C-alpha cells in the first residue's frame, strides 16, 4: 500500500504576543518572527500513518509512506526528519505564493501531484491548519481526484489485504468504517498522535541526502481552473474580549462551597441546556 501524507509547516501562533496581532494599516499578521511547527492536525496525520505502517508490519504487509508539503526550503529539515522516522519519500513542491488562503490552489496542486505520480491509494492530511483555518483542502483534494473523503479521522488500520478500517468522529459519536481505497482521510482530533522523534543516528543518515523538490509549474497545467487570488482577504483584526470575571466562592467547607456553586451558578445554567 502507498500512503501519502500532506502536511504544512506553519508559524506557532501560540508564540505570538497580543501586540503582534494588531498591526495598524497592515493587511496581514506578521508571523515570520515566531518559530515554525508542523500544523498540529497534519502532525497527527503523519503519526497515524506511522502507526498504520507499524501495524501493517505486524501483519507482514509492506507500507510505503510518503510525505508532501508545498513550501519553501525552510521545510527541508522537517522532510529529512520524516525520512529519518521511516517515510520512504519526502517531497516538496516549491511554493511561489502565500498558500494560506488559497485552499483551491493547494488542493489542486496536491491532486495534480497524486494524479501525476499515480501510485497512492490512501491520502492523509490534517482537517485544517490554524493559519488558513478553512478546513477545505482535504475535501477539495478529494473532489479534484473524484475520490471519497472521510473527515474527523482519529485512527486508521489495515483491515485486510485490500481494505482499511477507519475510525472517525461524527455528531452521534464514533463511526468505524471499512473502506476500499483510494480515499482521502482528513485527520481530526486523534488521540495519542504526537509525532515520534527521530534519533540523531537516523537524522545523520538522512542529513546529506537531498530533498526531492518540484516546481509548482510542473503541475499547473493539470489544474487549469485554479483561482488566481485567495478566496479570503484579511481586512481587519479586532480583539475579542473573552476574559471572564472570577468569583471566589466563600463557604465553611468544601461541601458548603459546592452547594453554593451549584445553587447560585450551575443550576440555572444546566437548566438552560
Amino acid at each position, binding site marked *: 500500500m502507498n500512503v501519502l501524507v500532506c502536511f504544512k509547516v506553519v508559524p506557532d501562533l501560540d508564540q505570538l504576543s497580543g501586540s503582534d496581532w494588531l498591526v495598524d494599516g497592515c493587511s496581514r499578521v506578521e508571523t515570520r518572527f515566531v518559530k515554525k511547527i508542523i500544523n498540529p492536525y497534519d502532525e497527527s496525520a503523519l503519526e497515524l500513518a506511522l502507526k498504520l505502517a507499524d501495524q501493517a508490519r505486524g501483519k507482514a504487509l509492506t507500507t510505503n509512506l510518503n510525505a508532501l508539503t508545498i513550501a519553501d526550503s525552510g521545510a527541508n529539515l522537517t522532510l529529512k526528519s520524516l525520512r529519518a522516522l521511516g517515510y520512504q519519500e519526502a517531497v516538496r513542491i516549491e511554493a511561489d505564493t502565500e498558500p494560506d488562503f488559497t485552499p483551491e490552489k493547494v488542493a489542486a496542486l496536491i491532486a495534480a501531484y497524486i494524479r501525476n505520480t499515480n501510485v497512492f491509494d490512501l491520502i492523509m492530511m490534517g482537517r485544517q491548519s490554524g493559519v488558513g483555518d478553512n478546513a477545505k483542502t482535504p475535501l477539495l483534494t478529494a473532489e479534484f481526484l473524484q475520490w471519497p473523503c472521510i473527515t474527523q479521522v482519529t485512527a486508521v488500520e489495515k483491515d485486510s489485504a485490500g481494505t482499511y478500517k477507519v475510525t472517525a468522529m461524527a455528531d452521534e459519536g464514533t463511526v468505524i468504517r471499512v473502506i476500499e481505497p483510494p480515499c482521502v482521510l482528513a485527520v481530526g482530533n486523534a488521540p495519542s498522535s504526537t509525532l515520534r*522523534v527521530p534519533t540523531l543516528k537516523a537524522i545523520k543518515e538522512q542529513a546529506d541526502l537531498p530533498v526531492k523538490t518540484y516546481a509548482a509549474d510542473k503541475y499547473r497545467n493539470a489544474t487549469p481552473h485554479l483561482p488566481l487570488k485567495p478566496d479570503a482577504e484579511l481586512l481587519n483584526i479586532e480583539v475579542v474580549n473573552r476574559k471572564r470575571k472570577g468569583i471566589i466562592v466563600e463557604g465553611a467547607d468544601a461541601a458548603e462551597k459546592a452547594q453554593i456553586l451549584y445553587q447560585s451558578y450551575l443550576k440555572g445554567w444546566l437548566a438552560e441546556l
Partner: protein
Amino acid sequence: MSLTREQIVSALINIVGADQVVTEEEVLKESSVDRFRRFEELHGVYTQPLPAAIVYARNTNDVSQVLKLANEQNINIVPRTGHTATEGGLETSVENSVILDGSAMNEIIQIDPYNLQATCQCGTPLQALEDRLREIGFTTGHSPQSKPLAQLGGLVATRSIGQFSTLYGGIEDMVVGLEAVFPNGEITRIKNVPRRAAGPDIRHVIIGNEGALCFITEVTVKIFKFMPENNILLGYTLDKMKTGFEILREVMAEGYKPSVARLYDPEDGAYHFSHFADNKCVLIFMAEGPKAIAAATAEAIETIVAKHPECIKVDTRYIKAWFDHLNWDATDVAKERAEIIETKNIGNTTEIAANWDKINQIYETCIERIRNEIPDMTLVGGHSSHSYINGTNLYFVHYYNVVDCKPEEEITKYHWPLKKIIVEETIKAGGSMCHHHGVGKHRTPWIKDEYGSSYYILETLKKAFDPEGIMNKGTIYPGR
C-alpha cells in the same frame, strides 16, 4: 524503636490538626518523587518508599513542632514548597518519610520600596511576588524558567538562578535575610542589613541547603526598579561555540553587565531558533537598567561582537518572540507530560560551571561522548546562560527515546549514564558539577570529588545542625 506509620500520622495530627495532614495514597505516591523520576511517574510506577504523610505547615511554629517531633523520633523530613525540583531532592529515600510542605505559608509580608527589599513566607510563588512588585514599578530581578511555578523557600534552598543573572546575580546575591528552623526546632532569624563583617556569612549555611540542614520559612530579598522601556535586545548567529564563549568572556572582562547573556549551540538552538538560525549557534544579549547604562552596554556589546566577523546580527523581533515565551507554566508541564507518554521521548538537563579556559573543552568532550556512548539519543546540545568574571555555566540539554526497557529502568539505562559523563568530565576539568539545580539525590556520588578537601566543612555542617540525620536523607550528603 521507630514509630509506625500510623503513630507518625497521629503525632502529626496532634501538632497541626487533621486538616493539615494528607495521607491519600495517590497523593503520597506523587509526593515520593520530583521531575527526575517523571518517566516512572507518568507510567504509574513508583519505586521510592511511600512517605507516611504530607504536612502543610501554616506557620513557623508548625514547622518547629514537626521538626522537633521528627528529630526526637528519627523521622526523615523532606522539605518542599513548589515541587519543581529536578535532581531528586524531593524523593523520599526512606520508609515513612514526612513531606513538610510550606506552600500554604504564602503571604507577602512586606514590600519596602524605600529600603528596596521584600519579605515573604516560604510558600510565596515567585510569580506572585513579581506581579505585585511590577504593579509598583519594581522587580525581583529573578526569573528562572520555573518562575510561574516555583516558590521562594525552594528557590533559596536550591540556590536558584534566573535569566537576568548576569546583572542581578543568583538568588544568593538577592537574599538579605532569612528565617529558618533547624531540626531541633530552633527558630533562627538573620536580620536584613546591607552587609556585615561580623564573622562568616551565615546566610550561606541556609541558602542552598536543599532541606538537608534546615527548613526555610521566610525570605527577604532585594528589589530593583523595573525599567523595561529601556531594554535593548541583541541577537546574532555564529558558527562556533568557541567564538561565542570568547565574546561572552570579553563582555564580562571589559566590565559590562547585560542582564541576559546567552549562547546556544546549533542542536539546542534548533528547538528555538530553526526559523532563522539554520544550523548555527545563537548569541543573545539584553541590556537593561537606566536608559544611559542600557544604551552604553548595548553599544559596547555591539563593538565587541563586531570584532568577530562570523557573527551576523538578526532582527531582534526574533529574539523578543522567543524571550516572551521562555518560562514554563502549568500548561507547558501538562503538555510535556502528554508528549512523553505518547512518544516515549524524554528530555532532561544537566547544568555545570567552569572557568573560561575550560568551558569549551568540557562542552566538546561531553557532547562527543554522549553522542557516541548513549543509545537512542534524539538531541544533545547545550547553552551558556549565566556568565561571570571568571567563567560561565553550561546547560546541557539531552533528549532520548526510551526503547526496550521498563519505565523504572529509564534512569539507569539513559539518564544516569548521561549525567555521569557530564559530571565526571566537568570535575576532571576543575569545574563545578552543579550550577543551579542543586545536588539533589543523584549527584551525591560525586559530592566528595566536587568539594575535595573542603568537604570537611560541608560534612561538619551536617554533623552540627542535623546530628540525627533526619533532614532529607540522601540529598547533598550521600545516603548511608
